[in-house]
């Protein structure tokens, strides 16, 4: 459903992405693991055109575009097929939680206000924050902000949700509620591409595991197999380092 | 319609520029008294007396809300009715009006500079045995001045600009002199005269702005050390 080919991106002469190929099927939850600095976040941002890639092709739901030549109009068209959950939540500071969620419907897709409100409330209910709907972001805890960020992402019924380390900015005590919310989405069949460092969590929700190393995805394996028989030496090293009681079979 | 005559500008310039002494006179007098009373007013604002504080803030509010030209007229026509004062030397009315204004804005500059100081500075000064005045003179004031410099220079710039209102009570400062020449030339070279005034006023303002930046950099101890170090390197 989402297909990326040959995605390249450099920052000031330093090549961060060296030709990423990636396919995600409908209903899959794919999790990307990798060392920090391997380009995971840049990859997600490039897919959503939040960062301009230097090269590569994207194809989603029948629309195809080149990353570096896509017109503004095309970029917006493709973005509207996707949603993005930011590490730092990125809630609109001047809008209440409800307005944050509604905006993608009213301002962007021209949905009537009453209907948008209904759908937004439904989305907020899913993340369990209906009682905070009229609060401003500054009045919410980090975990709550992120859950509203997720509500904002699901309300437009996107083909896929991209999540960039959704729990990395949270206090340890608040991580659980957000992971729980994402887990429910996964169980409900939402297509997602997630970058995270929460390995046990990934293990429990992911359809496939992707491993990224030095700007390329070097392995995509069904989750169970990924942890039991990682194909690449780099993946093994990473898993050994990340999971204390890790053991695998070759 | 006559064409713009560039050749006229040097002549106009030499005729207008001597009047800069008048402009400088009211600016310097107003600035001096503004610093003095502005300091006192800031002291009242930061002090313990509720009455003084209310008076000081009230005064600043009034000065913030009333146009300079209105205050100038009130001073010019009103002051001679209250105290016996010679109405001929008009420069003093301009200087008084400007001093009244700049007292308000400078008091705010001082107050905000004081309040932006780290509390630990005063405590540290006292901890090494300094008296209150000593702490103020050696530690707080030097730091305050650096913080206040941009605002102080803005007040000075405002003095130069608002001072041009002097012409409205018939004082021949720079702008007044320019208008006088227009009258003398029977309305000829109007645009040339005003362009000449632009050529005179603009560098004055740029000089104040530039001086402000230089002074700020000079007093910035941390960056001075940086510069020395990089000079050695």
């Amino acid at each position, binding site marked *: 459903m989402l297909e990326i080919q040959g995605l390249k991106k450099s920052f000031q002469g330093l090549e961060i992405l060296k030709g990423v190929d990636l396919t995600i099927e409908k209903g899959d939850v794919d999790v990307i693991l990798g060392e920090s600095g391997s380009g995971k976040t840049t990859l997600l941002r490039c897919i959503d055109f939040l960062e301009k890639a230097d090269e590569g092709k994207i194809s989603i739901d029948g629309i195809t575009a080149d990353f570096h030549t896509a017109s*503004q109009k095309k970029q917006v068209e493709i973005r509207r097929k996707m949603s993005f959950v930011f590490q730092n939540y990125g*809630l609109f500071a*001047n809008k209440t939680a409800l307005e944050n969620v509604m905006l993608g419907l009213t301002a962007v897709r021209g949905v009537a206000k009453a209907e948008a409100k209904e759908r937004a409330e439904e989305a907020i209910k899913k993340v369990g924050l209906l009682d905070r709907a009229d609060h401003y972001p500054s009045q919410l805890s980090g975990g709550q902000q992120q859950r509203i960020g997720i509500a904002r992402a699901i309300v437009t019924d996107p083909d896929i949700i991209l999540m960039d380390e959704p729990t990395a900015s949270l206090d340890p005590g608040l991580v659980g509620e957000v992971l729980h919310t994402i887990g429910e989405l996964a169980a409900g069949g939402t297509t997602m591409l997630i970058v995270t460092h929460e390995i046990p969590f990934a293990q429990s929700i992911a359809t496939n595991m992707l491993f990224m190393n030095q700007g390329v995805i070097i392995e995509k394996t069904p989750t169970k197999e990924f942890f039991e028989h990682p194909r690449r030496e780099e993946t093994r090293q990473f898993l050994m380092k990340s999971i204390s009681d890790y053991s695998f079979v070759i | *319609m006559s064409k713009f005559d560039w050749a006229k500008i040097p002549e106009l310039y030499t005729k207008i520029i001597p009047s800069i002494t008048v402009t400088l006179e009211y600016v310097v007098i107003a600035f001096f008294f503004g610093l003095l009373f502005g300091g006192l007013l800031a002291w009242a604002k930061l002090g313990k007396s509720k009455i003084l504080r209310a008076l000081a803030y009230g005064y600043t509010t009034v000065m913030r*809300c009333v*146009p300079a*030209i*209105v205050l100038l007229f009130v001073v010019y026509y*009103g002051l001679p009715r209250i105290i016996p004062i010679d109405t001929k030397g008009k420069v003093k009315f301009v200087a008084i009006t400007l001093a009244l204004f700049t007292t308000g804005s400078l008091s705010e500059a001082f107050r905000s500079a004081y309040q932006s100081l780290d509390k630990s500075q005063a405590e540290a000064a006292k901890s090494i045995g300094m008296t209150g005045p000593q702490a103020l003179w050696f530690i707080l004031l030097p730091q305050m001045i650096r913080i206040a410099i941009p605002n102080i220079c803005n007040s000075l710039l405002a003095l130069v600009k608002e001072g041009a209102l002097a012409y409205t009570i018939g004082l021949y400062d720079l702008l007044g002199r320019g208008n006088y020449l227009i009258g003398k030339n029977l309305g000829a070279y109007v645009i040339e005269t005003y362009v000449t005034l632009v050529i005179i006023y603009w560098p004055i303002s740029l000089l104040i702005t530039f001086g402000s930046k230089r002074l700020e950099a000079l007093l910035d101890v941390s960056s001075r050390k940086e510069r020395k170090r990089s000079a050695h390197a």
Partner: protein
Amino acid sequence: MLDWKFIGNTILKCASGIPETAILVIVTLIVSTPIAYLMALVNLKPKRILSRVFQVYISFVRSLPLLLIIYLIYHALPLWILSFGNFIGKEIDVYKIDDMVYGFIVFAFVSIPILSEVFRAGLLAVPEIQIKAGQSIGMTNFQVARHIVLPQVIDKQLPMLCTFTTNLIKMTSLAFYMSIREITGEARVAAADSIRYVECYLVIFFMYLIICLAVEQIFKAFERNSQKKKEGNWSKNYAGNTRTQKIVSGT
């Protein structure tokens, strides 16, 4: 002794200039705001040629006495319009142009650079993630500007916009020199008619004071409103929640 009847009449006379003052201020704000905002956007990249031109313009307005700018434009503009008329081969009667139009032009000319600096500072204070988040939900750049950036800039810069508005009200006191009979203009006429200068100018002294204080109060009301968004009553909502205390203490 004060002649209260005379003062009463003067108040009425000067108050008849309030509409002119108000129109000058409001039209100037409406005309200047969009232009100033665009200028601020350009000035975000100070190395652009256009941005350098704007910086000269900003310096011009900041450096010169308002009265000089008024004289200059008031005298130069008719000539420019005439020669523009000649250029397009049409005769324009500059003397038919209303003085208020000159007022709008002069005050917009001096307001635009000041406002653009206010907006520029506000724009710099909007975190990039707010823009990216807007894009991520599929907004066009225009929609991001309208729904996200502009409201946040205005929220942030309300105090500066308040200062600017009161300054603009004060600036219009010089509109008399363009033959506009606003508050100060009315007072000057009243003073000349009655030769009671002090009374007349004291009347408008207090009139300006009241108007500016009222404007400040209106802005304060808006500020209180936006303050709610910024701070909120966070801790109150969470009283007794132990997990929250951890967040509040910053661990």
